[in-house]
Every structure is written in C-alpha cells, then in structure tokens.
C-alpha cells in the first residue's frame, strides 16, 4: 500500500551518500565508499577501495535493488562494466510512481560480509508529539510487511522531549536486537547516534535498513535514508545545499521556489486555491461533480499578485489543463491581490484557457471590480464554480 500525498510540510529528501555522511558525523559507522559520476571514476574507486564493491544508484526513490540499481562487482573492470550499464539508465521502481528517474551518480562502496540484517529508524510520532525510535531484527526487507504480519518484532522507544533518549532505553533496545555483548554495545551507540542526528539536524526521518552485523561482529549502516523538516532548513545551511533539484518534478520545484505548495495530478481542471484544507476540499468537489483535478495548489496566506502569476504559469505549462478554477476565500489573502495577479497573467500569456473564478472574503468588491472590468465574470459559491468548471471541460472534450 502506498501512502497519501500529504500537502502540509514536504520533507526535503537527500541521497543515500549524503545521509550516510551526516550519520557518520554523529558516529554511525558506514562502509568506506566513493561517489562516482562516470564508469572511469567507478573503476578507480573500486581499485582504491579494494574489491568486492557494491555499486549503488543515487536516486531518491526506494526499491532500487529490485529495479537493478544495486550491483555487486568482484573486480574494478567488472565494476566499470556494471556502471556503464547503469549510467543514463532510466530507473523505474514501485516508488517512482510510474515515471522513471535517470541515474547520474553512483556510490561505490566496500562490500561487507553480512551475518544479520537489522532495521532502525527515528521519526516523529505525531499522536503523542514525541520522537520514536523503532527497530527490528527483520531488516533488509519491506518493514511495512514486518509491521503488519509480526508487529511484536518491532521494538519502539519514545524519547522524552526535554531529556532526550536515555542511555538505558538505547541499551534496552540493543539487547532486544542481539545477545552478543560486544554487538549490543555497538548497537546502543548506533541507536543513540541516530537519535542525535535526527534531533540536531531537524530531520523528519532517519532510516537505516539494513543495519548490518558483519561476520566479524561489527555493526555498520549499509543503507540509509534521511528527510528534513522544510521549516527548519533556514538553520541548516549545509543540509539545505544538499537538495538535488534534478530529482524533483520541475514544476513542483518551480512552485516551491515561489512559495507555493503544488502537487501535479493527472486531470484537466487546474485549481488555484488559498489554504491547504480548502484546496483539498476543492479537488474533492471537482471529483464529486465528475471532473478530474490537474493539481493540488495552495497559494498560501499573504498572496501577492506575483505568486498568482507564477501559479498561472505553472498550471498553463501543463497541456492537459483545459480550464483553470480559482477558489479564493479571502482572510489574510486579499481578493484584489489575487485579481490583479490574474489580470497580469492573462495579459502576459498567449494561451488563454477558460477561467472560472470564485472570489469571496477580504476586499471582495475591489477584486470583483478588477476582474469584471477585464471581462472575467466572478461567482461567489464554491459549488457553482466547480460545477461550471466541470461543464466547461466536458464541453471541450465533446467538441
């Protein structure tokens, strides 16, 4: 089962090699590795590290292994050959949601001799407003399945918000994961370090899967994932610079830079709404009356005409959009600001799709005046506007 698009607070993702470098700073052991962006670099990295090596595609989507994004090589030449196949390949996994991602960089790492694979993660448990550390002896697999089938195999420790994770909690968890004294000691350290990394870097997720116990009794993070709270990036410059725009949908990236929350969907009715809840309710209503929304778009609170202009440009660059529906309930957002942005957008853009406007609330009269003097009619009921938009798009399809 896949999760839902959560429109509030997008976490920023980083690549595996970046997550590992952050975790290593906090004391989590990771394999020796080098980043490479062409087969020659892979060859020399393999030579330097010593074979066998693992070559891992650096893409944001999970499920790389099954899609051929992880390869084992026994010689530098073999590594180069495997990498040649990988570079430029479009990787399509169950997490890329239909579209494929180009591999531009790989991580070359020393292969480790695996004895056991564990699972370890840190997230915020919003039901009790505390960070929770989760672990399992069933690592290296789909952890959701472990949770569903054998929930008793998942151990959880909640950290006190003011004291943090206490040493005995880390120890208790470590002793659930293994019995060897030396391994337990290392595990306790990794658990504490992962928690520290989560807190200090304002992460939304730390996930180490698998956390490996090697045949010679060493604990090491073989794969790692981290996500970060967008709201806290202002105080983490180094992490903010790790954002890889090439991995993001270009339209969504453009929207993010302009301060808009935007998620692209498959329908034909472009939606411009103020407020995440109202934006979702508008999408729901479009579907309810038989249409398909082209996007989720929240222009946010204090919306300048510029933001509206950017929103229009983003929507209209999608050829599937047959009509644009504005649903604005002014509070902090002023109707005249939105109207001004619309008029400017329509003057600048060559293609003018049908626009359906619902505008009410703060400075409604000024907004209406601006629009009506430019020949745009304005409704005041959300339901009427949505029905109208659906009928416009349907009419267009028939003709």
């Amino acid at each position, binding site marked *: 089962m896949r999760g*839902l698009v959560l429109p509030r607070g997008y976490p920023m993702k980083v690549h595996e090699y970046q997550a590992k470098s952050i975790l290593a700073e906090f004391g989590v052991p990771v394999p020796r590795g080098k980043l490479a962006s062409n087969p020659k670099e892979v060859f020399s990295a393999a030579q330097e590290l010593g074979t066998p090596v693992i070559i891992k595609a650096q893409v944001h989507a999970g499920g790389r292994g099954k899609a051929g994004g992880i390869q084992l090589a026994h010689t530098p030449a073999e590594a180069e050959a495997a990498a040649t196949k990988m570079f430029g390949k479009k990787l399509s996994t169950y997490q890329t949601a239909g579209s494929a991602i180009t591999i531009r960089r790989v991580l070359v790492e020393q292969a480790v001799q695996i004895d056991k694979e564990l699972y370890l993660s840190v997230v915020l448990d919003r039901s009790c407003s505390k960070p929770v550390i989760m672990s399992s002896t069933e690592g290296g697999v789909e952890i959701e399945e472990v949770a569903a089938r054998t929930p008793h195999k998942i151990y959880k420790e909640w950290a006190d918000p003011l004291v943090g994770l206490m040493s005995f909690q880390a120890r208790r968890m470590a002793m659930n994961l293994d019995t060897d004294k030396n391994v337990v000691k290392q595990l306790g350290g990794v658990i504490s370090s992962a928690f520290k990394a989560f807190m200090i870097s*304002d992460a939304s997720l730390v996930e180490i899967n698998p956390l490996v116990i090697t045949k010679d009794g060493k604990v090491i993070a073989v794969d790692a994932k981290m996500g970060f709270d967008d709201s*806290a990036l202002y105080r983490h410059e180094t992490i903010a610079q790790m954002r890889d725009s090439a991995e993001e949908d270009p339209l969504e990236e453009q929207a993010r830079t302009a301060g808009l929350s935007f998620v692209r969907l498959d329908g034909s009715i472009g939606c411009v709404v103020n407020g995440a*809840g109202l934006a979702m309710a508008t999408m729901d209503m479009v579907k309810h009356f038989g249409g398909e929304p082209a996007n989720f778009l929240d222009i946010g609170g204090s919306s300048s005409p510029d933001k509206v202009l950017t929103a229009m440009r983003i929507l209209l660059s999608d050829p599937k959009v047959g009509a644009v529906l504005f649903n604005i309930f002014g509070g902090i957002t002023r109707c005249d600001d939105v109207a001004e942005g619309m008029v400017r957008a329509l003057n600048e853009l060559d293609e003018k799709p049908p626009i359906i406007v619902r505008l009410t609330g703060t400075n409604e009269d000024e907004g209406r005046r601006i629009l009506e003097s430019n020949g745009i009619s304005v409704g005041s009921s*959300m339901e009427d506007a949505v029905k109208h938009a659906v009928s416009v798009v349907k009419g267009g399809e028939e003709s």
Partner: protein
Amino acid sequence: MSILVDSETRVLVQGITGRDGAFHTEKMIAYGTNVVAGVTPGKGGLTIHDVPVFNSVAKAVEQTKPTCSVIYVPAPLAPDAMLEAADADIPLIICISEGIPALDMVKVKAFLRAKGVRFVGPNCPGVISPGQCKVGIMPADIHMSGDVGVVSRSGTLTYEVVASLTAAGMGQSTCLGIGGDPVIGTTFLDTLELFEADTDTSAVVMIGEIGGNDEERAAEYIRESMTKPVVSFIAGRTAPPGKRMGHAGAIISGASGTAEGKVKALENAGVPVARVPAEIPTLLHSLRSR
C-alpha cells in the same frame, strides 16, 4: 456562551508591532476584543492602536493582567514567545505563526504541558466566540452568534463552512482552528470535551483532513462519551496515492490517516460525514430535528 474565549477575555498580543500583528490587533479591537497589552522586545513604551507595548511578557502581565496571549511573531522566534508566555503563567496561548520547525514544537509542547497551560495552534486562524471576542485572523463578518461549535484543522475551509452555517441561519458558540501542523497544542478530542461541557453549545461541526489519527481518536470519544450531535467533513478524500519517502511514517500511524479510515471511524460513531461542505447545514438540521 462559548469555550476558551468570551467577553471577559483580556488579550495580550505578542509581536504587536509587526506587520501582521499590528493589522490584526486593529481588526480584533474593531470586533470588540479587549486587547490589554502588546509585547515586542525593544519596543516597550510605544502605543499601538491605543494599546501599551511592553518589552517582556512578565512586565505586561504585571501591569495589565492578560488571560490570553496571541502570537504573531515570525516562526524562528515563535517558540520562544510561547515559552515566555507560559513562564509568565498566562493560561491560554493562541499561536497564529506558521512554519515553526516540528522539533521545536515538541519541546514547547512538553514545557507548556508541564506548566498546565492550554495552547491552540500553531499555524492556525485562531479562536472566535461570535459577538464576544475574536482572537486571530479570521474574517469577522461571516460569523453569527449561536449554539453550534465549530472545530477545524484548516483555515479557509473553516471560513467556507462557517459562512454556509451563517447563511443557513445557524449561529456559532465558538469557532476554532486547531492548526494543520504535525505537533499542535489542542486536538479535536480536547475541543470536543470542551464543547460537550459547554452549556451553550448544543451541536458541533468537526472539519478534518487526511493525515494523522486525531479524527479517529475524536470518533472514539464521540462514540463512547459525547451526548451532543456532531457532523463532520473530511478534506482530501480524493488525494491520490504517491510520493512520499521511507516507510517509518506509515508504520507509526498504522492504517489510520486515510480519508476512508476517518470517514468510516466517524460513521461508526454515528457522525454523518458531508460529501461537500455545503451539505453540512442540512445534515446538522436533520440531526437536530430528530
């Protein structure tokens, strides 16, 4: 007839000299809210819209005895503003600011809870008891005083629902936005308990959305303990599956968080769930005339 704020409420505005703070202070005063003081460190001694400004919350409390603080300061400074208000023993804090880091809120919530302070938000429109007191940024004129309690995770969607209630002649006792962030002070469950105990509220509208399990927990309370009728709406029913990262979040929330799960939990608790917001007054009417 209300919860949290009423005509007796004495309001302190933190961040009163900022753009949003000054603008909304004026609107709140115009509505009849008793704004007794403002705080902006370094701007003590000024007066804004006839309201005295202090350098610290402690000073403002000493001289003006506020019973509620509303926070309009920018996100990086908002956690400290909340802690300062709690330290000065103000019993109710309403935080409008958006974009506060989640882990800051984890600490703030723990401190405020230990202090016994109630807080609403952050990232919310605030609280209004129509005809008595408005603390926040909601447009005043869509409200009408009456006996329906409204609680929501959203801002503008709340306005949408309130406007439709008012148009149908159904006034409100108190309307509050609890905020859409992962860590919030007052939950649906907390609010329902307040409405259940409020003699002047006779029905409740609860506007939820996908994510988290606050609605599911509220449904359990409604089924077991609530005597007053509740009508609901859940936004995001058609939000598609897709983009997200990792698996840890899914495990911790279990099967909850989806619109389907929430609608089902509410319907099992006898709560009618509107398919479109405009349906809410009709559902409320038929429930109350039973």
